[in-house]
């Protein structure tokens, strides 16, 4: 094919350059489009969970290239159609050749690397980065034509590379093995697993969470700090609020010194000293209360029937968010402490809940039949992003926490009840 792009075949050196440019552009564009399609397909199919599968495929390909296993490759053992340059105008056949080679699967596959790249693009599940990566493949295809050479023709250059084939194959094996290792170690769209537990809370570094054994753990640089017979932690700087058998305790988490105590049927604290938001159950109602722990003044934010679910509030920088779920509708409420509550997100179909506030964003979970999403909204611009998703009816999302651009979410298994906290950077 490289011998086609010569002044003799193209008609002049100018036409040769035009043909090469069109070939290169077409190869780049086609490869990028392929990458984008694969990334889009991966996002649609939820293939971001398949990163480990892509790593396995890379390892298998490395074994094939090292001749440890024998595997046929799906490919079309074809050259570019030679008759095109006789039957079609130069811009058409040059672009067509570029598109054919840029697509990758319409021609001979000397190694398995192309298919590993396809699997990687699917697992990446993001069209734009996948397009950029695949554009490099197209650029490689075009390189032999457009790379300037002083003495060698294009055909001779290709033959020189072919003579180095054994070394290239060894390098390819090493590259595939490295890809397998990197894919296996990469944090996936599932996020990085933190630890078993639930109800994460974070504030500028340390993360507090509850264990299913009935304790609260504060994780930081250095040894973890444990509080037994505790649940529902909320951490704010050096202070920790949690629920025990008699109510809510606010302690200095480094040494356990008791700062404040609230007794009674109270739960789900959210601490931002000196304010504490929590739920209080009274008779047939659940109430969201905001208390100033310094002055002792308390204010009821909202009240719902006990048959409804009043969720864990999130208190941050003069703002408060919480969810209320009924059998008819689920809602996330948001308010500035100086204002009135308003419904920010609601659904009669999905289950929207577990909000967590940061300085600029709101994080929450959306659950539908067979799918769950972790979404974040910029409070000023209103833009919404999905930063994680899971598929299946046996796993779901639970409580969340948000610190800057790091989201924490509890994932739990419906059959076993086991919970794990994951971290997602976005």
């Amino acid at each position, binding site marked *: 094919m490289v011998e086609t792009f010569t002044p003799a075949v193209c008609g002049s050196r100018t036409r040769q350059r035009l043909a090469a440019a069109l070939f290169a552009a077409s190869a780049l564009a086609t490869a990028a489009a392929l990458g984008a399609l694969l990334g889009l397909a991966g996002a649609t199919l939820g293939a971001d969970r398949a990163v480990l599968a892509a790593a396995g495929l890379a390892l298998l390909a490395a074994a094939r290239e090292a001749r440890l296993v024998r595997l046929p490759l799906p490919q079309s053992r074809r050259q570019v159609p030679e008759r095109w340059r006789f039957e079609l105008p130069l811009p058409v056949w040059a672009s067509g050749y570029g598109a054919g080679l840029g697509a990758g699967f319409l021609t001979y596959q000397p190694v398995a690397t192309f298919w590993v790249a396809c699997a990687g693009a699917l697992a990446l599940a993001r069209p734009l980065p996948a397009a950029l990566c695949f554009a490099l493949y197209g650029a490689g295809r075009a390189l032999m034509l457009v790379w300037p050479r002083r003495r060698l023709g294009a055909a001779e250059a290709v033959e020189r590379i072919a003579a180095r084939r054994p070394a290239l194959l060894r390098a390819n094996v090493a590259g595939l093995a490295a890809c397998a290792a990197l894919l296996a170690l990469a944090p996936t769209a599932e996020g990085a697993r933190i630890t078993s537990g639930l109800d994460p809370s974070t504030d500028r570094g340390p993360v507090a969470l509850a264990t299913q054994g009935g304790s609260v753990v504060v994780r930081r640089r250095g040894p973890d700090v444990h509080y037994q017979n505790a649940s529902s932690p909320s951490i704010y700087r050096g202070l920790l609020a949690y629920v025990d058998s008699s109510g809510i305790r606010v302690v200095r988490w480094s040494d356990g010194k008791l700062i404040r105590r609230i007794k009674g049927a109270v739960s789900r604290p959210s601490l931002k000293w000196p304010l504490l938001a929590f739920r209080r159950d009274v008779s047939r109602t659940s109430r969201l209360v905001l208390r100033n722990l310094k002055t002792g003044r308390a204010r009821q934010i909202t009240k719902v029937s006990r048959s409804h679910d009043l969720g864990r509030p999130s208190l941050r920088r003069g703002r408060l968010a919480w969810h209320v779920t009924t*059998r008819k509708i*689920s809602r996330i409420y948001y308010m500035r402490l100086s204002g009135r509550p308003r419904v920010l997100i609601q659904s*009669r*179909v999905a289950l929207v809940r577990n909000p967590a506030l940061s300085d600029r964003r709101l994080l929450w979970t959306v659950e*539908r*039949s*067979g799918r769950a999403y972790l979404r974040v909204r910029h409070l000023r611009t209103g833009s919404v992003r999905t930063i994680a998703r899971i598929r299946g009816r046996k796993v779901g999302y639970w409580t969340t926490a948000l610190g800057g651009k790091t989201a924490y979410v*509890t994932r739990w298994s419906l059959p076993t*009840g086991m919970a794990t906290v994951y971290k997602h950077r976005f």
Partner: protein
Amino acid sequence: MRRPEQAIDRGAERLSAKLAESTTRRSFLGRLGAAALAVAGGSAVAAAVKPDEADAFHFCGHIWNTGSCPSPYPPLARIDRHGYPLHPKSGKRIDNLGRVVDSAGHALDGNGRRRRGPDGRVLPPAPRTRICEDWVRETHGKNDVRTQGSWFRCCGGQIRKLVDCCSFSRRRINGDASLVGYCWGGRRVYCVMYYDSGLDC
């Protein structure tokens, strides 16, 4: 021992009562069908509903090609008498997340016990809303949907009521032009659902 025709007559009574009290009672065909049953008696049931399995588009009884309404178990939009979702196989009450629930809306496990969350507490109820009036409204932006017309087919040895979710939209859920079907008042079929009566046919 009850004579077979008496059993059919009782079945017709129950069916006509269900027709009268269902949300399609204002349907012209529904009224006509109920009147016909009242006059002709139970033998009309066996005559009106074919004894063999109905042909299907994507579920038994659906002889046209309008797509199903959105549901917890797509593409099957099985509903109860009031339009709330049921599990397509077991017919049990389910919430919008597809979980089998009790009458209070609490999700149940395989042993019929209320499911507990990772914190050990019983899971709170999730929304359980009507397939046509709530799901289609929210997921497809159709604020004018109503459950209207219906027809009956024999499926799995029992009478299935196929129900139209109707809208003024000229496009149906498939994306192409909608049909009038059994809708009225200017509405057309947007998507379809079905209710299994349990009556023998």
